[in-house]
């Protein structure tokens, strides 16, 4: 029957695409629905003149230096995704543009990082060893958990992997304090938290360490055809595995019958049946728009409202008509922050007025042929942890976005000593309004929910077991237990697919 599937996936973002590959590869009749005309969600690109801009990917960890390494590299291999990855040569580079200027740059590898840290902070190398030793303990704990297939013996875990438990229930600042890291080393490492727009007094140490360790030890990569190359490859793999994918197809309702999911209704009124629906969209949208509130467990509504929205983004995409070196750029990635203190960076990040911090990425520095010879692609990205566009209207929008973009450009030029303004061949500015348009998320949030201390990785993981939504409804994506970003979204899609398949084999949904 054409209008009936084993599983319907709503949203072809990173989580939805991976779930579609995994479920259809296992032989389940799978339908992937996407409201936009392209796969990928944030993992997309757009063309202006001679330039093709990446929509969101700055660094992809866990693909390893070769094709064989890393969780994400393994997923790609499993689904036959063969794209080229370029290693990013630095693990961290930032400039403090404030009263006390400071610059830190380290290559990839623990030794390289320790050397760079020791050079600016005597004693840092020894303290950093404690940090990496704890990272190793954390990874051993996770390996044991995964070997126990999610059903570990708690006593044995506490006995054999106590540091795993400690890190899982501590904040980053508590971990720094316990390990007695020198203040400057704490400040340096805290810059990694900005990848999650994270407050080190609130986010959990475990998630932070997993990410930081992978950036430092393995390094991150960029891919050859923008992240849209990965999205297109995944969509093609899903198709080969038998998955149907419909674009330009907006779901207007998730249907329930007798308290369980029964299918979806499309915006043209057509109904498609499935007892399992995986949402690669934020719970806010599912509970706020797609699901009958009467059919939604009250606790899920309360949870959605109790959570804090994740970061909102502002990005200036620049196609410049000179080679990047000629314009004065020296590195692929540079954070420019007003302060070295995470607390102050986070405090400033609430509004346009207070926040002028950004990350600068020069795509051609890692992907040499990203644009025609003699040109380059540069991105300036600012993140907000508040509703920085609360004052926007259709009439002041262009003025607001151009003024803020101009401010970022001027600061990048001054701090990096580069020439941008005289070489802009193409410029596109995306704002929370842009992300609200394409993703539909409240305030245009791009990072799901903020990993507050009560809603961090461990808390979400434990919650997943205990918190029940409508039977047959599942979530995948950057709002999940592994938090936001490319790798967590991919992994979330995979984990959800495994859960769906497991429950189908075991009979009724949990």
């Amino acid at each position, binding site marked *: 029957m054409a209008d009936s599937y084993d599983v319907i996936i709503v949203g072809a973002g990173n989580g939805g695409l991976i779930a579609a590959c995994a479920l259809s590869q296992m032989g389940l009749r799978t339908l992937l629905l996407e409201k936009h005309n*392209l796969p990928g969600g944030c993992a997309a690109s757009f063309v*202006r003149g001679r330039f093709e801009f990446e929509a969101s990917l700055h660094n992809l960890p866990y693909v390893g230096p070769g094709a064989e390494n890393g969780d994400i590299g393994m997923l790609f291999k499993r689904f036959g995704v063969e794209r080229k990855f370029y290693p990013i040569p630095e693990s961290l580079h930032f400039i403090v543009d404030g009263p006390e200027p400071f610059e830190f740059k380290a290559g990839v590898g623990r030794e390289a990082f320790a050397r760079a840290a020791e050079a600016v902070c005597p004693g840092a190398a020894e303290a950093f060893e404690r940090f990496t030793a704890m990272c190793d303990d954390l990874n051993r704990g996770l390996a044991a958990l995964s070997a126990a297939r999610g059903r570990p013996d708690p006593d044995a875990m506490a006995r054999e992997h106590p540091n795993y438990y400690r890190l899982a229930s501590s904040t980053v600042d508590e971990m720094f304090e316990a390990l*007695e890291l020198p203040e400057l080393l704490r400040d340096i490492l805290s810059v990694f938290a900005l990848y999650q727009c994270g407050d080190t007094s609130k986010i959990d140490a475990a998630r932070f360490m997993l990410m930081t360790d992978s950036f430092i030890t393995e390094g991150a990569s960029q891919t050859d055809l923008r992240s849209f190359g990965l999205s297109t490859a995944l969509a093609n793999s899903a198709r080969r595995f038998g998955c149907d994918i419909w674009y330009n197809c907006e779901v207007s309702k998730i249907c329930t019958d007798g308290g369980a999911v029964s299918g979806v209704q499309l915006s043209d009124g057509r109904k498609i049946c499935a007892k399992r629906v995986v949402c690669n969209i934020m719970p*806010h949208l599912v509970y706020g728009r797609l699901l009958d509130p009467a059919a939604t467990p009250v606790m899920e509504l309360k949870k959605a409202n*109790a959570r804090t929205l994740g970061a909102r983004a502002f990005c200036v995409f620049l196609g410049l*008509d000179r080679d990047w070196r000629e314009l004065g750029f020296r590195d692929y990635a540079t954070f420019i922050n007003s302060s070295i203190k995470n607390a102050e960076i986070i405090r400033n990040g609430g509004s346009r007025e207070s926040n002028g911090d950004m990350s600068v990425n020069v795509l051609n520095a890692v992907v040499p042929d990203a644009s025609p010879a003699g040109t380059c692609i540069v991105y300036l990205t600012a993140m907000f942890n508040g509703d920085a566009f609360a004052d926007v209207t259709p009439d002041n929008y262009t003025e607001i976005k151009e003024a803020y973009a101009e401010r970022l450009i001027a600061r990048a030029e001054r701090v990096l000593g580069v020439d941008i303004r005289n070489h802009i061949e193409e*410029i596109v500015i995306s704002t929370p309004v842009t992300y609200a348009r394409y993703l539909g998320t409240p305030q245009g949030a791009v990072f799901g929910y903020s990993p507050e201390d009560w809603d961090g990785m461990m808390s979400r993981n434990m919650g997943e077991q205990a918190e029940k939504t409508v039977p047959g409804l599942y979530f995948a994506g950057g709002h999940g237990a592994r938090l936001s970003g490319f790798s967590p979204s991919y992994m979330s899609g995979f984990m959800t697919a495994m859960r769906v398949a497991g429950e189908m084999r075991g009979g009724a949904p949990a």
Partner: protein
Amino acid sequence: MSQDLMRYAARMDLSKMGAIMPRRMAHIAQGAPVPPKLDYAANLTAKALHPKCQKLLVAEVIEREGGAKSFVLRAQEGGELARFRAGQFLSFSLAIGGSTITRAYSLCCPPSWAKQGKYMITVKPSEDGFAGNWICANWHEGTQVTASAPLGEFSYTRLRDARHILGVCGGSGVTPFCAMACAIAEGSEDYSLTLLYGSRDSDSILLGEELAALAQRCERFTLVNVLERGGGDESGYITTELIKKYMPEGDCSLFVCGPAAMMQAMETAIAPLGLPERRIRRKTYGVTEAALEADWPQEAAGKTFSLTVKMRDQTYTVPCASGETVLVAMERAGLEPPSRCRSGECGWCRSRLSAGTVYIPARTEHRRKADLAYGYIHPCCSFPTSDLTLCVGCE
């Protein structure tokens, strides 16, 4: 190291693990038991700026030069319309005979009109054959029409372009410049425009009176009518020398808009100027025709191929003549594939070519690199050179 590490690690409280879930539950309990809020300023602005479609009606028809007509459009339900930047277009969905087709028309009114709930477009029947003739014959006061949100990138951008634009246009290519002149005149955009506007003779200057009036009252807009048969500000064609003559001192951006044949001639005229690429913006007007392209494979001429179209769970087989685009073949057969700009740029019609070969004119090649690698095409600018199988809006 291990013993030493334990000494540090022990300072982190192992028992806190047990507090995670009670703490989580306490926070969740504080949330309101209602559907979450979704209508923030960013969401409302996104919706107002980019509606999925706009239901309009013709409020006024104005006769123009040479049988052309301007149509003033208003929202069917009243109220404001989506804002636009001067130079943008609307893509109209038109049901003609048994076909539903799209056509893009540039807005040619002041940007402030959108807030007042109105737009204006101008249609020259002869230039856009089929659709233009049909619109001019069938749209009357009160006719209901469906349009996209304002689209397109042929607009002045403060952070990118020079403060002085030298516009070069012919025929309907004048319409985006008309909006720019209006924007400058009303003060909603801040740059200067000198327009070299090529027409056959003084009777065929589309929007000629409007533009002359704008130039009269607005110092920052200069109009130069270039008439093939003489009698204008300049006579003959727009040449390199003529562009040089009117090129302002200092920094300047060249904006060129016109039908395909004119655009090809203009490339030759522009080249000797030695302008950097960032100072040139182009927009091709009108229908894309294979026969106009120098490198179109002639052996395809006169042939009709078979086009198999997969749309979701339906499959259709339709004829596709070599000289027409794959998009037109689908529309002619009564299918409703997605499309907007019809010039290769917006990518809205992106579809997977699972079998067969097509010819794509180099100047309309704006596909993403991954689309080239994985066999996706923009049917609006692709011509068949064999039988084809196309997946439209699906995999």
